[in-house]
């Protein structure tokens, strides 16, 4: 069975995929992951997961360009310029200072 190994380099950091090992069962997987990814004390922690337990998602659909919940959906520059002119608070362009 193939087990995927995720390692955390230091406390607080995200677990990152580090590689995979072949093992007969969880006990062997633990022993092997420990040595392959931790014998130098280079990992704070490891997650060892059977590959068959991993659900991969790599197709995402956004046919209608839903930008309302992203930063790029809010171009504010023009509106801000207009509002400042109305309030008389327009600032000189940076180059004029």
């Amino acid at each position: 069975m193939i087990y995927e190994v995720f390692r955390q380099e230091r406390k607080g950091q995200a677990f990152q995929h580090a590689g995979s090992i072949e093992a007969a069962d969880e006990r062997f997987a633990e022993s092997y992951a420990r040595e392959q990814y931790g014998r130098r004390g280079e990992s704070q922690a490891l997650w060892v997961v059977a590959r068959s337990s991993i659900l991969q998602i790599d197709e995402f659909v956004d046919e209608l360009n839903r930008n309302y919940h992203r930063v790029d959906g809010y171009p504010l520059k023009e509106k801000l310029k207009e509002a400042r002119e109305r309030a008389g608070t327009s600032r000189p362009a940076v180059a004029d200072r």
Partner: protein
Amino acid sequence: MPARADLLLQIADDELILGWRDSEWTGIAPFLEEDVAFSSIAQNEVGHARALYELAARELGTTADELAFDRQPEEYRCSALVELRLPEWERTIARHVLYEQADAERLERLKASDDAEVAGLAAKIDREEVYHRLHAQMWEERLKEEPRFLSALEELRPLVDRRAAHSPALAELWDAMTSVRRSQPAGTRW
């Protein structure tokens, strides 16, 4: 020879010779993942030997390397169990299982020693041995129905505490182990 040094050498020699034998599987173990794991065990064993030699060396006025390499085969205090060359996996694992059991008991006694240094080192070694034991148990679990493993256990069990005479296997190992070192005068750095 002071009693403490004598005891330390007995354990150190066991770990050294066993580690030397176990390290022979590096590169040719039954499969790659196991190769890496078993090599760590072998290295730990040699590392334990080194720490024990260092402790004894201070008392005896010598160095760990001199204790490990520069004695004659007859002077080693290792058991018959660890001396044998066992190129079969079932015999290697059988030895591993038997040795870990015996060593666990020995370490318990040492951890209770009045000598703080010995007790402290024994505790450190024991913490590493936890993983050796897990590994041995893991294999024993898998091989417990295998006839060749069971006969290996039977074959090797009587050798666990046999420390009287050394087999030719030790002299052979010593010869290979020390050949580079002996090619130059004592004290040469490597």
